[in-house]
């Protein structure tokens, strides 16, 4: 789809296209964007129209999750503690997008500091699901998913710490990719849980996902955990006959919506028809994944978020006495409820006397989960599962019950713990609500993952359906 758009923009007008998008956004009920970079984007589009440049994303507008640093554009992580913060530098992925000719449209809504599954923890209020505006778009990259699904942006970037790209992709009926840990530089991504998260594309098609990954991946000396990239576009249309699929027993059954389960099994049949074989496999440590994930993520978060003390950015409140009091006041007023909960729990988990009981234990579980995936993926090429156990829920339905909200991440967090890549793509509907299929691959085998996803997409109509949102 982006390839077609690129052709159209080169012959037509990038400015007119952008104006349409901005008009749509300004009239929209989705609340997908926190900030628009309207003037700069239109200016750039006019330049492009006068003398078009080359590049893999020449002239393509893109929406960016508000947790990714953009030079000159306010970047808040949807937290009032960061209101007014304008980064003096671009994240690595933004540099790459610009180098390939893309135009940054603005910043999309998210759960505060990416802590959530619904965007309901955003200080700007929740984004809405284009398929049903009373429902959540998923999270934490909900604004990016809603914008792409709602036709407000042709593509977007999100970040995935425990499912934050795949969950909203699933709820909004689009494609979301979480790359292998280390494939995309995190330089400029405001950390929630460093050891788990990756920046990933949210797109309307698998090929678009491959195109964006081609652009944003690769080694960056500023991120010590970053690795070399592979080739994602060239083989994406190849066939998948002979592909061996594993269906993890633990990802089906109790707690999974029957419509979701049915769609995923239908998808497995489609893949079989395309030449793949499947067998049941087991990831025995899955039941410990959520606990381990939340301990690690909250521990890291409690440290990452310590810098928001109001000294250099964020909001100062009233008069200062001593720095203890000022820091406490700034942080009490600036962080939302869920963020505070996670900072407190993380602080607790790292405290003397508890470190061994919680953090170290969580790291041990993480190793076991990683081994689950490595062992299983030695015998099969990909794993297949639902992305989310259920379709998009109603706004307000779960927000007061954090545990039930955490449970929603049950099929996405093990992937982050293991560091393997996974993609969510549309595989059906439960009523009017999209259902996401999750494919999980081996470390750095995004090429195979994308090829299988693209074959499935080619054989099915789900990605073509559009929400009727204004």
């Amino acid at each position, binding site marked *: 789809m982006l390839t077609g758009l690129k052709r159209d923009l080169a012959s037509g007008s990038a400015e007119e296209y952008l104006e349409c998008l901005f008009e749509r956004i300004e009239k929209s009920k989705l609340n997908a964007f926190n900030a628009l970079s309207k003037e700069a984007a239109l200016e750039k589009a006019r330049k492009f129209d006068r003398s078009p440049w080359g590049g893999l994303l020449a002239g393509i507008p893109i929406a960016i999750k508000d947790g*990714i*640093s953009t030079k000159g554009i306010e*970047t808040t*992580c949807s937290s009032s503690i*960061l209101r007014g*913060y304008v*980064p*003096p*530098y671009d*994240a690595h992925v933004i540099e790459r997008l610009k180098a390939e000719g893309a135009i940054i449209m603005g910043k999309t809504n998210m759960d505060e500091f990416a802590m959530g599954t619904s965007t309901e923890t955003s200080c700007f209020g929740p984004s809405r699901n284009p398929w049903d505006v009373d429902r959540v778009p998923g999270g934490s990259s909900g604004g990016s998913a809603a914008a792409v699904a709602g036709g407000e942006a042709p593509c977007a970037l999100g970040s995935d710490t425990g499912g934050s790209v795949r969950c909203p992709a699933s709820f909004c009926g689009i494609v979301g990719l979480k790359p292998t840990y280390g494939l995309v530089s*995190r*330089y*400029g*991504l*405001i*950390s929630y*849980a*460093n*050891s788990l998260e990756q920046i990933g594309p949210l797109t309307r098609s698998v090929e678009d996902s491959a195109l964006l990954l081609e652009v944003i991946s690769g080694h960056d*000396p*500023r*991120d*010590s*955990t970053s690795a070399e990239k592979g080739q994602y576009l060239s083989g994406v249309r190849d066939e998948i006959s002979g592909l061996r699929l594993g269906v993890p027993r633990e990802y089906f059954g109790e707690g999974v919506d029957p419509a979701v389960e049915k769609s995923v099994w239908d998808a497995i049949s489609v893949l079989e028809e395309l030449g793949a074989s499947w067998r049941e496999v087991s990831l025995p440590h899955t039941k410990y994944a959520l606990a381990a994930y939340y301990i690690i993520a909250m*521990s*890291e978060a*409690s*440290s990452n*978020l*310590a*810098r*928001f*003390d109001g*000294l*250099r950015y964020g909001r100062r409140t009233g008069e200062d006495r001593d*720095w*203890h009091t000022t*820091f406490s006041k700034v942080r009490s007023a600036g962080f939302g409820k869920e963020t505070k909960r996670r900072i407190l729990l993380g*602080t607790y988990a*790292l*405290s*003397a006397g508890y*470190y061994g009981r919680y*953090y170290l234990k969580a790291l041990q579980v993480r190793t076991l989960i990683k081994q689950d995936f490595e062992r299983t993926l030695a015998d099969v090429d990909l794993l297949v599962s639902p992305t989310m156990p259920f379709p998009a829920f109603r706004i307000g339905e779960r927000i007061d019950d954090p545990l039930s909200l955490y449970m929603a991440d049950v099929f996405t967090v093990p992937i982050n713990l293991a560091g393997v890549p996974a993609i969510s793509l549309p595989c059906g509907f439960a009523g009017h609500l999209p259902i996401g299929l999750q494919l999980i691959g081996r470390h750095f085998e995004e090429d195979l993952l994308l090829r299988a996803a693209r074959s499935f997409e080619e054989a099915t109509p789900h990605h073509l359906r559009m929400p009727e949102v204004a």
Partner: protein
Amino acid sequence: MAADNDVIVGLEVHVQLNRLKSKMFCGCSTAYHDSPPNSHTCPVCLGLPGSLPVLNRRAVESGIKVGLALNCRIEENTLFYRKNYYYPDLPKGFQISQYDFPLATKGQVLIKGEDGERKIRITRAHLEEDPGRLVHAGTIDKAKYTMVDYNRCGMPLLEVVTEPDMRSPKEARIFLDKLKSILDYLDVFDGALEGAMRVDANISLKGGDRAEVKNISSFKGVEKALSYEITRQRNMRRRGMGVIQETRHYDELRGITVSIRSKEQAHDYRYFPEPDLVPLRVADLVPAIRASLPELPDARRDRFREEYGVADDHAKSLTSEIKVADFFESVASRAPPKLAAAWIADVLKGELNYRDAGIDRFSPDDMVEILRLLSEGRISDAAAVSVIREILDHGGSPAQVVEALGLAKAGDDVVLQAVRFAVSDCVEAVSDYRKGNERALNFIVGQVMKRTKGRADPGEAHRLVVEEIERSQG
């Protein structure tokens, strides 16, 4: 004060690796000392959201160098941790430091303690980043506001921790001098720069709780703070009160230590491995670094004694700074070594200290020339000192200075003539001397010096005057 058996001192020394070109985790230059505040910063050392640290490999190499020089074991793999605490000079709300698997462990340094040789065990040496610097408007307790300068933030620091093996403030000082000398030889830091070495000192009396005096910036300060603490802790004990385990601040101006409010010391640092850095295998770096280690002060001191026959106190004085040792060897290869040792250690170093100058203010060639003039008897000792002073204060070569100030030793006949004149002139003094008043001789010698404008050698003049008086008598 001799070493007291009941005094127990351990040190934590923070060494800024300021010879490195860039900071610990970013590319910012370390040469900030003469720059305006906050001019040596970037997203990484400012801790801006989204920035990530990248380890400066050279800092690791420097750390290994120091570890080896302190006879430490270097770990196979080393790991960085986050030390979490809030402070206004700490932009991330945590400091990247080391915890388990520090770079170097279990070393030792021998010092000449107050009761002979003492072994100071090194617990560990680890790398960390320096915080920023707070500039208070006024004193720390009365400041209306405080400014933060992040230039220092992210400077590579090596923390050297000792076991509580020192028995007096003096021994702490001796250890610190020795450590500084070793660091100087390794070329990892410039001790002259502000904040290059900061010391936390732990002190207790046997059986009592210990106090930690934090952030002392001079060695003299360490000695004074520890002496003050010993007195304070003894008095507490005498009054039947226990010493509280606490952190204290050394007030340099008043020469006392004061308790820091307990709110700031109740720390649980919540260490956990820094997820943005990967474990680093250092074992492979060790052989090459070990092979490249320079000769260290102790070895060089021994060699100076053996190779040049230099007295031990001279050898010690010449080897405490590597530049002085190099200077000596450059001179000693072209001049009598013992003479060179005495003149450099006793005279030149003193003159330099007096002027607060380093050895690079003086050229070895000039020293060689001065020693040549001395050995050839062309200038007196006093004249040589004048030459050194003149060169330091106004420049010029030894030959020029000798010429310009007329410092060349007068020829024998000139001196002899002056002696004859003096003896025949000072009739009264000569007669006093003959009556047994030895001191009268000084007056006559003084006259000789006056006539020769000080170019005569006083000893020589003395001998000639006695001879002349005896000759004129007979």
